């Protein structure tokens, strides 16, 4: 395979870690371009999961026996590893393991928003928010009487920062923004937004679901108050998400879920809360998934996050160039040459995105078609759905060529 991008990553070597990429459908090797939905899991992570169940499985914290101690240490250390991965100097105390990004959003919305927001408060979001953030704050606003406001998205798929400065005011209590748009690929200036938010004594919540997996993210450089992301979009397993929060804020927040693990002392009358982060991890937590996520962090750091970012960017730019050569393809988000995440959403004039995805499946090309959990953004784009190709460390230009050729097949079929 002649990878023009292989100076960045040894893709051939990386692909050996992902046996699923060898699968064939109808004699065609799968071309997996649905990585913004979920990434594949490399052998070292799969091995970590299997090893955990083969050798270490026990419940954490409550047990004094050897297995429980080993599981507890591995699980607690996993928090430190994830903290290191995103530059959180408060280590485990600032890292809460959840189910996914959506649960991380809900945790803050319920534990902080429901208690702190009132009719005089405003929550500022963007028009390109994922439903995980948009719907959550919308519903919390309904419960508390707060108002949601949305930073406009310009024609070129970027945020209107003048509008941001206009609507982030002293009434703003929370700014919740997506770091990299899962639909447009836009990389938002979250550090600048954090400054604006903090100037008005507002918190900022950064949805890192599409940024933490594919670029260096340093929460302290951004100065994010909260950051959320999911394990399964960064070579880790499903079932685990992460909520980073600044320690002093988490300390003041009430718990979100009650039960075991999260308490210090319980009587028939009352209970007191455990230390961070356990206060927010009620019940038996995601032990194996947490340990596997730490392994995924090792795996990605070994490759290098800056190189991963450049690799994805190159594939996305190449795809954009190929698709835009055809006059009947509309692409969304930043134009060619402008920074973007590793994904491209598009529509073929004559073919509905769902039909396109079904036809691409014949060439074993896996893409996503739909609203990508950004219905209001699609309303603004004027289309009910779009097709989306999204990349990861194992994708190649040849695979993009297969995508383009399969799109041509669809074009012929519907001609």
């Amino acid at each position: 395979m002649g990878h023009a991008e292989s100076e960045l990553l040894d893709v051939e070597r990386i692909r050996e870690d992902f046996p699923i990429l060898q699968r064939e459908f109808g004699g065609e090797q799968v071309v997996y371009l649905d990585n913004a939905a979920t990434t594949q899991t490399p052998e070292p992570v799969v091995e970590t999961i299997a090893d955990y169940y083969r050798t270490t499985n026990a419940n954490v914290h409550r047990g004094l026996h050897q297995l429980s101690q080993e599981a507890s240490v591995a699980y607690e250390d996993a928090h430190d590893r994830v903290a290191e991965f995103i530059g959180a100097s408060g280590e485990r105390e600032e890292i809460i393991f959840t189910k996914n990004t959506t649960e991380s959003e809900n945790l803050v919305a319920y534990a902080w928003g429901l208690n702190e927001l009132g009719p005089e408060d405003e929550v500022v979001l963007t028009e390109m928010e994922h439903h995980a953030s948009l719907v959550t704050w919308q519903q919390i606003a309904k419960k508390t009487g707060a108002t949601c406001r949305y930073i406009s998205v310009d024609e070129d798929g970027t945020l209107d920062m003048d509008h941001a400065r206009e609507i982030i005011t002293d009434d703003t209590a929370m700014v919740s923004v997506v770091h990299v748009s899962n639909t447009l690929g836009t990389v938002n200036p979250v550090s600048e937004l954090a400054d604006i938010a903090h100037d008005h004594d507002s918190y900022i919540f950064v949805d890192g679901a599409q940024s933490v997996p594919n670029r260096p993210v340093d929460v302290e450089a951004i100065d994010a108050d909260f950051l959320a992301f999911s394990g399964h979009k960064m070579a880790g397993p499903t079932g685990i998400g992460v909520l980073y929060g600044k320690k002093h804020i988490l300390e003041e927040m009430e718990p979100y879920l009650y039960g075991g693990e999260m308490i210090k002392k319980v009587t028939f009358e009352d209970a007191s809360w455990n230390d961070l982060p356990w206060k927010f991890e009620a019940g038996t937590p995601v032990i194996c998934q947490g340990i596997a996520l730490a392994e995924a962090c090792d795996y990605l750091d070994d490759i290098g996050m800056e190189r991963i970012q450049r690799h994805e960017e190159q594939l996305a730019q190449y795809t954009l160039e190929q698709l835009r050569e055809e006059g009947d393809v509309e692409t969304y988000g930043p134009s060619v040459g402008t920074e973007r995440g590793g994904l491209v959403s598009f529509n073929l004039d004559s073919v509905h995105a769902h039909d396109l995805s079904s036809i691409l499946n014949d060439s074993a090309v896996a893409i996503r078609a739909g609203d990508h959990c950004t219905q209001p953004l699609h309303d603004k784009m004027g289309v009910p759905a779009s097709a989306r190709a999204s990349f990861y460390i194992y994708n190649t230009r040849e695979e993009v060529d297969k995508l383009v050729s399969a799109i041509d097949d669809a074009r012929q079929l519907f001609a």
Partner: protein
Amino acid sequence: MGIGGSDMYRQQILDHYKNPRNYGEIEDPTFTHIGENPMCGDEIRMDVVLDEDEETIEQVAFQGDGCAISQASASMLSQELAGMAVEDLKAMDRDDITEMLGVDISPMRVKCAVLAEKVAQDGADIFFGEKDIDRTVTEDDD
């Protein structure tokens, strides 16, 4: 080729998609009803004329927007329904639609295929006072 790809797009379906039959409006229909798949953005409006006894479908027209499966299914159904007893329309199910289309529909696309059928059935049910809804909205388990 696996289920879900261009197997679904046999000539007949593409033909109905590109040249929909009975496309348009009927001036004085017995009933009109609209339905959608919110997730896909498919939308279909059906105008239906019943005979004097209100037992048999005389004429059907549809308008819509959406994927090939939903629109071809509406076009084919509009032909199928003309002359059909209302009772038979009410008895139609997913298997009848699959048979009419003549292809296997992948599980994720079933709601596209059955949208027109649901619109016609709900339209009839509303007309006969057996249902009280504004719009038909198909869900995954329909």
